[in-house]
């Protein structure tokens, strides 16, 4: 672990904080009165500042400090977070991010300009927002801070030292606010044999003789407020300045232990009891008690793991699964019962290890969706097209590699949707639509796949224009008969754009070829559907995982193949009736007609077919297809190996795997087989009609 660069940890941590900050700022635009949001944004800022300074990102620290100072007025409820202010705050956030990730690319001038903007907003003394909530949890009125000082009682959680916080440093910071009289409360210290050397047992009773703000005190404990109890009460009157003997004694010659102890106890005794009794009712101290517990849970429940380690783990599990398959086969062919038992045990372990590993790689897609809110916010502002952004299915989980791969295609699709899909407000109202456009981003599980859809309620695709462009570029002959669906496919053609003016953002089609390629590399497909005047829906169909799947091993002739088990609905025997209906290729499954394909024909299998042919019903979303095979061998944990470029022209296989006996077996591409079956049916219809 020591090999990990600490600044890298900071970068990772910061990028999470940025997400929190951005989310909070964007939400704040919608709910400007939400104190929680202001607080969470402020906390994120403060942590960035603190850890930035700790890791030597001085520029980050100083810029964030300025940002924080400005934002503090929002926190105090002195100014209202307007849309403009949030835009500037977002720009400031981006600047900090740039400072951390690529300091060379930034320019102080930009930073200064942003800060100027920020200051302008916060100093233009807008009246305090008419917000009731703010009044409820008020910072102490300015007048109140003029009183004699504060009485603090600090109680840290025992593990605070282990997290790297040093209470002494905090006390030192506190002393900077003004003269402090600090008395340690030692009654929590256990006997020596029970004492954990790295636990914190001390509590402190502090009298701070300074007319400072309550916020100033809170700031000192900002980093540890989740790990401590801070009880704060104003000092009632100016007490006599703290008696000095304790400190003097400490600085002088060593004193007898007993004497020292007596002094400490004496000093502590009068204050140690009362605060405990009186603190609770007065506890106006910690302003954010709720998020505290939430954050705690998360801290314990998650561990940061490098992405490459997860990838490595997956590779190892893949190798283990293959080795295990060989062991199982070997055990099955022998007669040693104990080996069989071990093989079964290992099979069970390998399969649960595989599930756990896949599970560890699963990430809810919501983390990706969150990123697009900013994109839409900015685009909608730049293009002056108000857009409502709705997401559903954020909990849908996908392999993390796929989430990463999905980011770029979705950016393209969303840009296209806003830039070209959503009409401007004038057109929209002329067509009797709401002025505000709407973009929906949804994710949902469907069988073996995850469907991610980007849906806009804009003008829809202009099929005629796409066609004209395709003719102009010589992709089709003028007057060729094409379905709308076929015409829309030209959008995925490299360099195809119907945009009449080149916008800074996108031209419908620019980048769409990249989208398509990316999705296909993930073994996914992309569907377009559009209704003129009502909008366009782009559906991405993606497999759940990239590495290992549960498969059904079958035999066709001499060859063995894998069908992804998640696509399998049921297995039925091909009855004599079905056999007879040779020309029609339909199967009667409980009253439903299901088309079927004879894999023997597709695989050009040699040898005589088995007497009892089986049919495996597979499904992709809506359509069901039967596959006729010679034999169903059984379950197989399938480690997916991709096929090489030399076989990229073969569409009915999505990959290959290695069986227990070391031979390779091909994995059937269910979606392609279904498409194949459907095109066969259509052909049949045409020939029947003819």
């Amino acid at each position, binding site marked *: 672990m020591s090999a990990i660069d600490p600044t890298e940890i900071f970068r990772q941590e910061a990028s999470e904080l940025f997400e929190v900050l951005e989310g909070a700022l964007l939400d704040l635009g919608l709910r400007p009165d939400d104190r929680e949001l202001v607080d969470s944004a402020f906390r994120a800022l403060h942590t960035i500042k603190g850890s930035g300074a700790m890791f030597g990102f001085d520029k980050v620290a100083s810029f964030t400090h300025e940002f924080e100072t400005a934002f503090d007025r929002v926190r105090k409820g002195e100014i209202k977070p307007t849309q403009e202010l949030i835009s500037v705050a977002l720009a400031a956030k981006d600047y900090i991010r740039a400072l951390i990730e690529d300091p060379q690319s930034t320019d102080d001038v930009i930073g200064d300009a942003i800060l100027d903007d920020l200051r302008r907003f916060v100093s233009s003394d807008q009246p305090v927002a008419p917000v009731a909530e703010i009044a409820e949890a008020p910072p102490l009125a300015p007048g109140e801070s003029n009183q004699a000082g504060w009485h603090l009682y600090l109680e840290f959680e025992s593990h605070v030292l282990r997290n790297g916080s040093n209470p002494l440093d905090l006390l030192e910071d506190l002393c900077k606010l003004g003269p402090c009289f600090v008395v340690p409360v030692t009654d929590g210290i256990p006997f020596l044999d029970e004492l954990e050397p790295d636990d914190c047992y001390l509590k402190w009773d502090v009298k701070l003789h300074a007319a400072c703000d309550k916020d100033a005190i809170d700031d000192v404990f900002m980093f540890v407020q989740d790990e401590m109890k801070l009880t704060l009460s104003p000092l009632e009157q100016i007490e006599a300045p703290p008696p000095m003997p304790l400190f003097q004694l400490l600085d002088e010659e060593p004193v007898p232990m007993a004497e020292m102890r007596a002094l400490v106890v004496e000093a502590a005794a009068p204050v140690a009891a009362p605060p405990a009794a009186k603190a609770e009712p007065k506890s106006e101290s910690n302003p954010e008690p709720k998020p505290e517990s939430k954050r705690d849970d998360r801290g314990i429940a998650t561990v940061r793991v490098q992405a490459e380690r997860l990838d490595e783990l997956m590779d190892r599990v893949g190798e283990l699964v293959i080795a295990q398959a060989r062991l199982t086969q070997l055990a099955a062919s022998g007669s040693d019962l104990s080996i069989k038992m071990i093989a079964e045990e290992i099979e069970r372990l390998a399969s649960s290890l595989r599930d756990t590993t896949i599970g560890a790689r699963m990430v809810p897609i919501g983390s990706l969706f969150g990123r697009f809110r900013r994109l839409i916010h900015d685009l909608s502002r730049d293009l002056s097209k108000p857009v409502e952004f709705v997401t559903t299915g954020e909990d849908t989980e996908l392999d993390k590699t796929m989430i990463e791969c999905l980011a770029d295609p979705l950016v393209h699709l969303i840009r296209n949707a806003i830039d070209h899909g959503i009409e401007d407000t004038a057109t929209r109202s002329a067509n009797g639509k709401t002025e505000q456009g709407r973009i929906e981003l949804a994710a949902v599980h469907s069988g073996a796949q995850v469907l991610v859809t980007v849906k806009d309620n804009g003008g829809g695709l202009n099929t005629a224009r796409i066609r004209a462009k395709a003719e102009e570029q010589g992709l089709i002959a003028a007057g060729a008969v094409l379905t709308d669906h076929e015409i829309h496919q030209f959008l995925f053609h490299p360099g195809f754009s119907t945009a009449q003016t080149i916008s800074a953002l996108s031209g419908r089609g620019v980048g769409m070829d990249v989208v398509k390629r990316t999705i296909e590399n993930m073994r996914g497909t992309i569907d377009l559907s559009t209704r003129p005047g009502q909008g366009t829906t782009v559906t991405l169909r993606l497999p759940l995982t990239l590495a290992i799947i549960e498969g059904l091993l079958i035999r066709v002739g001499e060859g063995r193949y894998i069908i992804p088990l998640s696509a399998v609905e049921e297995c039925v025997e091909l009855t004599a009736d079905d056999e007879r209906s040779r020309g029609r290729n339909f199967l009667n499954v409980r009253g439903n007609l299901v088309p079927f394909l004879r894999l023997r024909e597709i695989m050009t299998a040699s040898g005589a077919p088995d007497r009892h042919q089986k049919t495996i019903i597979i499904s992709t979303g809506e359509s069901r297809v039967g596959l006729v095979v010679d034999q169903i061998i059984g379950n197989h944990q399938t480690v997916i190996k991709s*096929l090489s470029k*030399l*076989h990229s022209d*073969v*569409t009915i296989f999505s990959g*290959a795997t290695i069986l227990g*006996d*070391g031979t390779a077996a*091909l994995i059937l591409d269910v979606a392609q087989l279904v498409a194949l079956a459907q095109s066969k049916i259509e052909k049949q219809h045409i020939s029947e009609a003819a």
Partner: protein
Amino acid sequence: MNEMQTGEHQTGAMQVVMIGLGEEKFALDAGLVREIIDPVPVTKVAGARSFVPSVINVRGNVIPLADLRIRFGMPQLDDSADTRIVVIELELDGEPVLVGLTADKVYEVTEISQTDVQQTPRVGMHWKPEFIRFIAKWREEFVIVPNMERILN
């Protein structure tokens, strides 16, 4: 374009692996060859192009098995005791790809010199000229140095 072919020396000498396909002898650039293995069970890929009819498992990787005899229109012999699979690595469209080649016999690793390079002597051979990098002489015999990138594309 042939930075892959590391077997070529400055002097013009070239390390090659001599393989036999039917009656013909081919010299494969030794820089391409990763390993030579005994025949393994093959898995037929339905719908693939005829000269890459199957895939094999080589050390946990599923790689295509190409049959140059089909590409060159030569008769296919049954596997014999001499049959080997030569695993080569080459770049196709900028990506390294492992490919297995069926060889009826593997003779030896040897050096042929560029001075032995002959102009394509016999016109009207049954393979296309673009598949041939050049023809060299080895032990008084003509051997073909094939252009694997072209052959497999």
